[in-house]
């Protein structure tokens, strides 16, 4: 999953789980035949836009910090 700047496993898992839970990452991965990097970056950009963060498509520290905050279990995008 080459979109991660620092590559720490923990960050990769945090971002992956978050995007699966709240941005339909898993389903979109199956539905689209593009590679992980593009889908991942697209989902990260969606999340960064919703949270008012710098839209980079990367899991920068500010994005990971937002992902680690307590939140509602309802997804951020429609199924």
């Amino acid at each position: 999953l080459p979109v991660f700047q620092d590559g720490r496993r923990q960050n990769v898992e945090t971002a992956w789980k978050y995007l699966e839970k709240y941005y339909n990452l898993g389903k979109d991965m199956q539905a689209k035949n593009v590679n992980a990097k593009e889908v991942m970056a697209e989902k990260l950009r969606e999340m960064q836009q919703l949270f008012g963060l710098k839209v980079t498509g990367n899991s920068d520290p500010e994005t990971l910090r937002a992902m680690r905050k307590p939140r509602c279990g309802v997804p951020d995008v429609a199924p």
Partner: protein
Amino acid sequence: YAITHNNPRWTKTHLTYSILNYTPYLPRAVVEDAIERAFRVWSDVTPLTFERVFDEEGDIVFSFHRGDHGDSKPFDGSIYHFAHAFLPGPGLGGNVHYDLDQKWTDNNENFNLFYVTAHELGHSLGLSHSNDEEALMFPSYTWGNKDFVLNQDDINRIQALYGPSPNPIQPTGSTPNPCNSGLTFDAMTTYRGDVIFFKDRFYFRVISFLPEPLINPIDLIWPNLPGKFDAAYEASMVDELRFFKGNKVWAVREKSVLRGFPRDIHSFFGFPSDVTHIDAAVCEEKTGKTYFFVDHMYWRYDENTRSMDPGYPRLTAEDFPGINDKVDDVFQKGGNFYFFHQSIQHRFNLHTRRIDDSGDSRTWFNC
């Protein structure tokens, strides 16, 4: 993100609700009151009315569950999924589920049951998450030590579904816009070359090479600080920011509040006990002297000896000619102090000891 996918909404305006079970952390009456107040958040701004039923399942059912509870959204006891709700519709539709393993409170500790219920009810009525950090429907849990009011973004979106209420309440503002005329700030400080303006729960960070300020919730960087500071300043010789609220001071380095803080300003700086708050503060880089402004007076503190200079307080206008009003905020940029009173700023030249420019505070935001 405005209205949920294919726009589900209730086709009736009178809805019933029932409570299936309770959390062990709160008395039943407190749970029932929290749910009632959460419904009022939405009935205040729409024609919707809600009624609790006892001998049957309501349109909306509230229940607490542990782990997998058969709705394809299992709880895991983590803070990343403390509750969820279902969009309007029959059966499961509209229902609100709380994680039984979370600590539910009726105060500022995580998680406030009223606040979470008001958010989840937004989903039960057809709303999805908002991208306005100040909105109730923002995905992250943002309850803070503030009186809760529904913000404009939430009001607009629920009224797009159900129309206005016969007794509309005054909407609140959403995320503050730095270009609004007359905007005033709680505190200002430099920080490693940038200038940061604080307003309510937000900061505006002015970075010289960016065309617009970065606007974010304060707790995105400093989750352990209170909102609505009185003052802030940068002690660059020790790479610290210091925040003031009432008679307390928080010392911060990068994202962390330093151990032992907050401290009271009397023991930490040596203020007399009758000083109950700070209006504004700035540290002059060259001398290491920090100026604290309180009403129309100021104190001077030596960061090197960590003691108040003798002979203070003095009248601000005496040593800063032209600064006659109470100082709301101040910071240093180059060889100048920028003094702010309400939405006006004065540039005070530290060398000539005179005001050499004045204007609207918005000049920093490239409006």
